[in-house]
């Protein structure tokens, strides 16, 4: 009765029992058995921490997760005030969302050090694209996000000339055309988060 890797399944199909494996994404547990909750192919991964394999269902890449606590999200800044920056979450864990979720980065969550002296307008501008981590589900309207890590912060920003800024340091970016320096909470450049097509 143990499902084979690569086997197709649809919601409600029994895959295995909890004694033989752990329930991963795309599955649920009911009365000691693991069932599929998505249509897709069965996959099993061995986890180092546990003896039991992790059973999951790989569906078409349309599968979209809602932002979870700890997930890395890509967001577009929409509005800034002196206390917080509001943004649209456009991707979760590098998966593009069909509809954006609303998010908010509060002043005290912008960076790790010198939290009290953060000035939002020196960190973000509307239109910037930033990487952030989900802190909590927030309130009814917004998810609470943080950029207080070296790898998090602005990744794409444009100057008044309309040219993409080049990161200089952790808090500065420069326009390659006018050489004007602008302040941002810059993310340490990392290739795995954003891939640009070759020009």
């Amino acid at each position, binding site marked *: 009765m143990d499902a084979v890797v690569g086997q197709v399944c649809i919601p*409600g199909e029994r895959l295995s029992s909890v004694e033989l494996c752990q329930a991963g994404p795309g599955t649920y547990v009911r009365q000691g058995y693991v*069932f599929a909750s998505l249509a897709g192919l069965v996959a099993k991964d061995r986890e180092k921490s546990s003896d039991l394999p992790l059973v999951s269902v790989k569906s078409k890449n349309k599968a979209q997760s809602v932002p979870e606590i700890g997930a890395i999200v890509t967001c577009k800044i929409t509005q800034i005030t002196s206390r917080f920056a509001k943004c649209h979450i456009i991707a979760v864990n590098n998966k593009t969302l069909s*509809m954006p979720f609303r998010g908010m980065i509060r002043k005290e969550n912008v960076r790790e050090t010198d939290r009290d002296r953060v000035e939002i307008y020196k960190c973000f501008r509307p239109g910037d694209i930033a990487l952030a981590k989900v802190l909590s589900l927030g309130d009814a309207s917004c998810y609470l996000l943080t950029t207080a890590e070296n790898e998090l912060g602005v990744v794409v920003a444009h100057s008044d000339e309309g040219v993409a800024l080049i990161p200089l340091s952790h808090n500065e970016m420069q326009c390659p055309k006018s050489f004007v320096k602008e302040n941002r909470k810059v993310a340490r450049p990392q290739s795995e988060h954003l891939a640009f097509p070759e020009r």
Partner: protein
Amino acid sequence: MPTDSRRLPVPEVSHSPELFCSSDPTSLINDDSLRKDGRNPEEIAGIFMQCGTVSQAKGSSFCELHKTKVICSVYGPKDVEQKEDFQMIGKLKCDFKFAPFSCHKRRGHIADLEESELCEVLTQALSSSVCLHRYPKSQIEVYVIVLENNGSALAAAITAASLALADACIEQYDIVAAASVRVFGKENFLRDPTFHEEYFPHQLSKKNDFNNGVVTVALMPTLNQVCGVLSEGCMESSVLQEAIQTCTEEAQNLYAPLRKCLTSNLGDINV
């Protein structure tokens, strides 16, 4: 009378031409115990199912049960509207609409009571199948349009909606298959009733109005749980039980085509 400023003006009253033709009421089954469209009472209607009809939607489906055609699309999970409260479980929003040209009598543009009722049944049936706790503070939208109604529209809509949810990769405990049956006297159960076989209280003559009605059952086939029942008309409880049993069997039979439809377009996944 309020006018609709967003649509073109229409004549205040107009009548379907069918109103003016002489109709002869015939029995639902003829002397050879066959139905009007030539089926046996137990014979089910052929069903056609397809996923991914609406490319703009997250998930979609098209279902055709004899001539009843239903299209369904699913959007989300997405942000709930601003005015709503924080909720740790997701919200399922359904919309059920008959196209104006889908029935013998023309339908209005604004949702009528029948549509609201069917929408409620649809929402409840799907709410028990979708893993709503996986989608905190989000909403999932399900839109159903009946393009042609030749009976059993609710059953077709529920099946189509569950198919569309699975196509949209929304987590479900089980898919939902629905079927309906027309009860006509104590022994007669007409499976997958056509429009003419559906239950119209005003068409009944006084003497045989007992044990007459339509029963629709939504079933989660692998868990073997019923997640929605709609019974119209008046019947003995034993007859109702038997009708539900008939529907359950029929819905169970839909599992194989549903599975085939869902698994047919999974070829290109890399594990």
